[in-house]
């Protein structure tokens, strides 16, 4: 199915199978379908969606470390490592 944000959350509740009315004397008429569209439930917020993915809950870890070291010429070099770990 294609999804369009402008439509909001929609769902199909039921499908009706029917034969169009016709004055023609036809032995066979192709079937038609009607999909009934209704507003659907809103999706849970992201936090709830993440929590639901893991019984232990989701957690996010950020670590930042600064290291002051000297390069081969003895000049101070500050390097920073930032690590983001996301557990879901």
């Amino acid at each position, binding site marked *: 199915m*294609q999804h*369009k944000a*402008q*439509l*909001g959350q*929609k*769902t*199909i*509740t*039921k*499908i*009706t*199978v*029917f*034969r*169009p*009315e016709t004055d023609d004397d036809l032995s066979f*008429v*192709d*079937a*038609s*379908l*009607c*999909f*009934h*569209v*209704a507003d659907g439930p809103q999706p849970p917020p992201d936090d709830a969606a993440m929590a639901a993915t893991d019984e232990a809950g989701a957690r996010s870890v950020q670590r930042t470390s600064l290291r002051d070291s000297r390069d081969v010429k003895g000049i101070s070099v500050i390097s920073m490592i930032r690590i983001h770990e996301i557990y879901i």
Partner: protein
Amino acid sequence: MIITFSLISEQATKAHFEFGINTKGGAIYGLFLESALASAKSIWGGGTKEPNRDDLPQLRAFSDIMWAFWVRNNPNVRNIRYFFMIGISNDLTNQIIASCLRDAGAELSEWPGTSFSTTTDQGHALLGRFPLTPTTDSKD
């Protein structure tokens, strides 16, 4: 409003869509649909060879075309209540419809016809989510 629409790419696909839109009542009517994929397979590949997707126009699905007309001059885009597919000729779809009617002990009849909730197996089958008789090799 009835819309007839043809798509072209570098080489014509002869894709063809006829559909109606009622923005006030919130209804879309699919009357005749042949996607670029299906028509290109027919006229480029003699009905047997799948076309190269890169050769097809980018806007090629019915939903692409229909959406463009649905959003144009529509004061309430969210007002979609009914989606009709009129006169279904697709063999597989008609087989599924026949199975669902048989399951319900019903015959094809004029409106109000026979309705299937989407919580039922028949409703799922008509939605196209999965086949009525599950196969072991595919869930699609």
